[in-house]
């Protein structure tokens, strides 16, 4: 199954390059130049993993991850930062980020993280499905 990734970064040249390279690796890529644009895209598209720059003009990544995790708890978010502030990085993890990577990031590394994040999302979805099935079958037993 194709992994659907949303790249969010205000550095357009970085996003474009990453878009091209991730697409070559058979990922389905959407891009956004700001957090607000990203939230808009999430409203109208199915996305598995968001790769989110921490520092952007307007709404920053740490604020955006809170909104994303609140609205779409199953979507996994990988934070990407051009500047390692020690506090922000661990803080970002505590907000539910799947991982926090420092730029410049190796493409392989990023792809592994995206795959791992996708795997977690799939397992979570499956968990919800199995719980529902168990509930349905339990109620079915009661009815019969």
């Amino acid at each position, binding site marked *: 199954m194709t992994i659907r990734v949303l790249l969010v970064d205000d550095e357009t040249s970085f996003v474009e390059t990453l878009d091209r390279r991730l697409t070559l690796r058979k990922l389905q890529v959407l891009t956004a130049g700001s957090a607000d644009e990203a939230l808009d895209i999430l409203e109208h598209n199915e996305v598995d993993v968001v790769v989110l720059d921490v520092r952007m003009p307007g709404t920053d990544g740490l604020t955006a991850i809170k909104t994303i995790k609140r609205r779409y708890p199953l979507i996994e978010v990988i934070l990407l930062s051009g*500047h*390692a502030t*020690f*506090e922000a990085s661990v803080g970002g*993890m505590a907000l539910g980020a799947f991982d926090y990577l420092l*730029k410049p990031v190796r493409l392989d590394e990023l792809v592994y993280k995206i795959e*791992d994040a996708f795997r*977690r999302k799939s397992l979570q979805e499956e968990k919800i499905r199995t*719980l529902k*099935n168990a509930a349905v079958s339990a109620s079915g037993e009661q009815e019969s």
Partner: protein
Amino acid sequence: MEITPEEADRLSNLFRQRYHSFRVLLAANGRALETMATMEKAYAGTRPFGMEFVVSNVTSVAIRVYRMISHLEVLAPDTYSELFTRFDEIRADLDAIVNPPPTVIGAPDVVPMTQIRRTDSTVVGAKMANLGEIAGTLGLEVPAGFVITAAAYRRLIDHNDLRPEINRLIQNAEIDRPDRLFALSSQLQQLIATAEVPLDLADAVKDALADLLEGLGSGVGLAVRSSAFGEDSADTSFAGLYDSQLNVHPDNLLETYLEIAASKYTPQAMVYRFQHGLRSEDTEMAVGCMAMIDASTGGVAYTSDPKDATDRRIHISAAIGLPKTVVDGRFDADFFIVERTPRTVVQRRIAYQTTALVLRPGEGITRSDIPSEIADKPTLTDEEILSVADAAIRLEDHFGAPQDVEWARLADGRLVILQARPMHHALVPDAVPTIEGVPIVSGGVCVSPGAAGGPVSWVRSDREALKMPNGAVLVVDYPDPRWAALLDRTAAVVSEHGGIAGHLATVAREFGVPAIFGIGELEVLRRGEEVTVDADGLAVHRGLVPGLEKGRRRPHLMEGSPIHEMLGNALSHIAPLTLLDPNAPEFRPANVQTLHDITRFCHEKAVAEMFAFGSDHSFPKYAAKQLHHNVPMQWWVLNLDDGFTGEVTGKYIHLDEISCEPMHALWNGMVAVPWDGPPAVSGSGLASVLFEATRNPALSTPFKKPYAQRNYFMISENFMNLQSRFGFHFSTVETLASERDSENYLVFSLKGGAADMDRRSARAQFIADILSDKGFHLTVIEDTVTARASALPRENVLDLVKIVGYLLMHTRQLDMVMGDQRSIDHYRSKLENDILSLNRK
């Protein structure tokens, strides 16, 4: 009990979720350990590293460790939550180390020179602090003026919110790549030069300027000079690495201020800070604004020989015009040596001066031809030379260390001190072998001693600077201070012009790069040709003289520097391992001291949790199976995920039903060579075994009994964790061999034995020796040998696993023969031969 299909689905999902968390935890563990090793290596090594290295590695380890705790929490909810508390405490300690409070708080934006003393160096920089001290306490003349402080610089940066952008640009660049360095430097300087000066700062500067001009009268220009924190200190000179602008029109002061502030990021200053382990936050840029001195002559005085600290005679360079003529090194200057007592000129070398730098009417400076009738005359009379020497000695007495003094003499005879800083003497290099043969070029002045060779690289422009290969001999027409950016990767420097007092000479001495300046015409040196520069012998020879590298002594500039110290402090909260024994009662979250402890704890508990969950659950698909190989064996296998080729319903599992590649590799290694049986043991060896047996050492395993008595494999398709006991030995093998090279690893550890501690330790060392050339990182502590290899392609990991399987089988009971050298030699050669043949099969 039968379970429903829905319950089976749920359990299956649960197992896979747990396995996923386990995998993520292991990957984080591997990455954290690797990063710790990188940091320890950097700390112990001589290669320079920057603030960004420290911050990003500390951050990276912290993130991995946090990930490990979070995923252990998935495996064992609410069981080890105290780890989060301990992690937060360690994190707070680390944060205080990597984000120390700023050095200047609450200082004014502008301070007049008359109020400045040397203790103010954190506010106005050492250069201006020294000048204030000289005027205020020594009564020597310095230019009138004021300083725009480091606090003002910080406000400028904050006002424009530049700090995050600056840090981001620096983090993303590789400043050891010259092209990136130059591009980065230009971006950073642009940011600052185009910043907006806060209104109140601009007003304060205008007020101070009005006061200054009132005292000077009209038509006087300004000298605007950098005075960064850390510049001109006893440890670091920063000679000429930042900008200074001369004869600036007062109307252009604010623009000039921004340009000088931006020069904090010249390539040469960035390389210099990097080499010296200075944080860029600690080198905030104060800027001195002073009345321009219209010097008729000027130069530099050293109160000892910069190449030899024991020669305490005064060394004076002098030229017609501004002192810049001397420090830029572009034009040749007169040189005098003055004896202290009796104070007399004992040596003089008069240059033929054709060009002087003088003030340009309106703004700036310009070249001026020197009339031929005075070109070969001494710049200074003996009386004037002695007056410069007197002032320099007074400065040395006052500051208590040899001084490097920039001076100017006015047409009316007044002597003005423009700068005084501690001298930087050259390291005394090790003795250089005598170089035979006729040199290609010779002459000039040795400005930094030693000898070294490399390919010739002519540098006259930034373009050529970018192309200079590492380890080249830098050849220039004059010693432009800009080329200091190249010195960290330069073997030696030769310059057609210039002398000992130039800025580039100062930095060459600091970096321990041999250099000859003023050697004359160098056209004979062709690009790429290999030459050897013998600075002491004032000669350049064709070819590379062997043996020079050994005698070369590069100073370890990082040691004791703020960034080196910062890394050391951070490491003390990260790297030591204090939780050693998983069976000790102290092995608890409350007792973790360092991030390494947390990784150790999380790993240990994650393995145990995975095992306990698998062995306690009655879910048949994931229950432990006994390995069946012709007969049932004492090996049990727990499937974490996709480790079996299909559904296995019974109690037993056959090898061909296992899809775990590492397990097959280990097994192949174990059975590749038949075991000869226990080694023949001498009487004393046997006695040792019997004695140890009576002491019944409890060998540690992370598992509760009765599992501790068995050999367990936990597997998936590309992961294997083996906990095994062979009699008195306990060993673990854990490996991940997937398509992701960077996450792959193998850890093998073996401890215990039946013999006494000496022999057991000898066996541990014996195994380490056997593995020493196989690419493992090895540690031996008492009778435990641990071998770790990581970030290898899958095939290589599997080859290593096979070797480990072989050793598991064949080093059993070898501890008992460790007293006998002949047996040791016999087994060493047997094992080495067997291992060689292993991967050929």
